[in-house]
């Protein structure tokens, strides 16, 4: 029996909700062979602005959660990804034109990466922080704290799920909130990840996913005064030097584009890239 095809029109993921683009625009997501897969929302600068507002208001709650709690929440995402494994494999197969085995490997690797980063949540402070020796009767402690709202241009090449996870997970570990511009040609993994996040324990607004054109959206994020850091990992094809200059106007932390097979490889340095070291002096009791 022939069944009626159901062409999906996906929406954005902002502030824990799934709004349509304010602009009302959508674009077609095509398979590797050029067949129609779905419609995705084409986010505008105003959607990005809304996403930044959502990320800002979610920041105090997420950064203020205990490190142990953040680790648990992130680990729970890995669990949910595992449960939706078949869907991700399917989407990666059709979007990227790879076979099931390759897609499966990518999903497994993405899940492993979540778990790896989740484990760091209550450990990175011990590694990066320090009790500094000073010549006086003082405790001198350095502690990393989250930078704030991090805007990310997700990797735009193959391995859409792994690239996205590699970019957002390290920023979340430290307690930052994230606005991420998804892979433009293969956004299905990002959209499905948004659905996973919405049903997980991650508070609304901690991760905001905007689909659409990075070329159009990135300059607004780079110049936005309420964004504290900019991860250009997937901005290799954009005029990213201009984006860096624009980001410097409001003193953002910036990570440069990365390409190749080991782009955004898991590393403690990716977590620490979006932290600020706070040093406090405190008198020692002298008895």
């Amino acid at each position, binding site marked *: 029996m022939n069944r009626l095809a159901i062409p999906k029109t996906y929406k954005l993921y902002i502030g824990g909700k799934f709004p349509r683009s304010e602009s009302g625009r959508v674009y077609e997501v095509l398979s590797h062979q050029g067949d129609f897969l779905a419609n995705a929302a084409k986010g505008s600068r105003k959607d990005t*602005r809304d996403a*930044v507002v959502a990320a*800002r208001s979610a920041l105090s709650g997420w950064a203020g959660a205990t490190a142990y709690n953040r680790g648990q929440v992130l680990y729970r995402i890995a669990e949910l990804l595992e449960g939706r494994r078949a869907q991700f494999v399917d989407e990666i197969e059709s979007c990227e034109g790879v076979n099931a085995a390759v897609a499966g490997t990518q999903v497994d690797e993405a899940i492993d990466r979540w778990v790896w980063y989740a484990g760091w949540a209550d450990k990175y402070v011990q590694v990066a922080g320090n009790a500094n020796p000073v010549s006086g009767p003082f405790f001198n402690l350095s502690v990393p704290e989250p930078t704030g709202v991090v805007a990310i241009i997700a990797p735009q090449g193959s391995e859409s799920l792994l690239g996205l996870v590699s970019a957002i997970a390290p920023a979340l570990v430290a307690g930052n909130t994230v606005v991420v511009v998804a892979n433009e040609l293969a956004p299905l993994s990002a959209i499905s990840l948004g659905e996973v996040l919405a049903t997980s324990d991650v508070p609304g607004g901690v991760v905001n996913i905007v689909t659409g054109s990075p070329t159009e959206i990135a300059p*607004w994020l780079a*110049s*936005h*005064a*309420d*964004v504290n850091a900019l991860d250009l990992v997937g901005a290799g094809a954009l005029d990213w030097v201009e984006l860096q200059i*624009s980001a410097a106007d409001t003193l953002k932390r910036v990570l440069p584009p990365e390409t190749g097979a080991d782009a955004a490889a898991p590393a403690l340095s990716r977590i620490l890239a979006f932290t600020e070291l706070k040093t406090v002096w405190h008198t020692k009791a002298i008895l």
Partner: protein
Amino acid sequence: MTHSPLATYQPEQRALALIGGEATDANLRRYLHGIPGIDAVGLEARAADLGTRSIKTSSKRWAIDTIIGLIDLTTLEGADTPGKVRSLVAKALVPDPGDPGCPRVAAVCVYGDMVGAAVTALGSTHAAGGTDGTGVQGVRVAAVATAFPSGRASIAIKLADVRDAVAAGADEIDMVIDRGAFLAGRFGQVYDEIVAVKEACRRADGSFAHLKVILETGELNTYDNVRRASWLAILAGGDFIKTSTGKVAPAATLPVTLSMLEVVRDWHRLTGVRIGVKPAGGIRTSKDAIKYLVTVAETVGEEWLTPHLFRFGASSLLNDVLLQRQKMTTGHYSGPDYVTID
């Protein structure tokens, strides 16, 4: 348009002529209940429709500066101190220190005991409706009075509250009506109180402080009551009708403000006198505020968009408007780090 003979009457005579006798409960009830009722669905649909207008670029720029010039920058907290009022005044005078071209707000609105602090802090920039020494529009001082926000005190205390604030230099008095009396149908009492408060607004030199009458629409329950309270306040001599204290939810909403503007429009047609409207509380974004501007312009006309006839009672609205203004000036989005925390 020609006005009826009412336009030539003195205000008190006019009210009595309209009511058709003394301002007793019975006469007022007959008059106020004779006013046509409100089509609530139609009113809300009209307000929602007015909220869909798209205001772009140069119009938006104008709207944003107009909004700033119409704001009663307000602090009404139990924790207010003279220091907080001073910083409020500083913000009222220079809303955006990064842009000297940013207009001043219309007034600061404080509790009666803070009027002295506000007047001192304003100094030469304090101007009762006029301009200061440099020819720039001065900032006025508004005081809430009559046992704000509940209004539950004896009339003697309410009037003393008003006289205190006026003596301390308040240019405008925001009084609350006795909602309990209004809802119980004791219109005469509400009327007499407004008249008495108006009299208490008289300064030593015989001039009057501007009287804003707060209806507290959130407690009036129906649009019909809002319309009746608006008529009552205007009949009794209020210069402004104000939606809310900001202490009761829901505070100002667009339909409520629209219904009050309609009363003001009808009063102007009837008598030729212009009454002001002040929505207060719950207006936090420039987008909301622009909807109110549209509603005013479409209902009573653009000539109402002056500080003498329209105000926003707000505290957090100003910051959002400033962020929009910075966005329009610099071309990129601004953030809360670039406006003052208050």
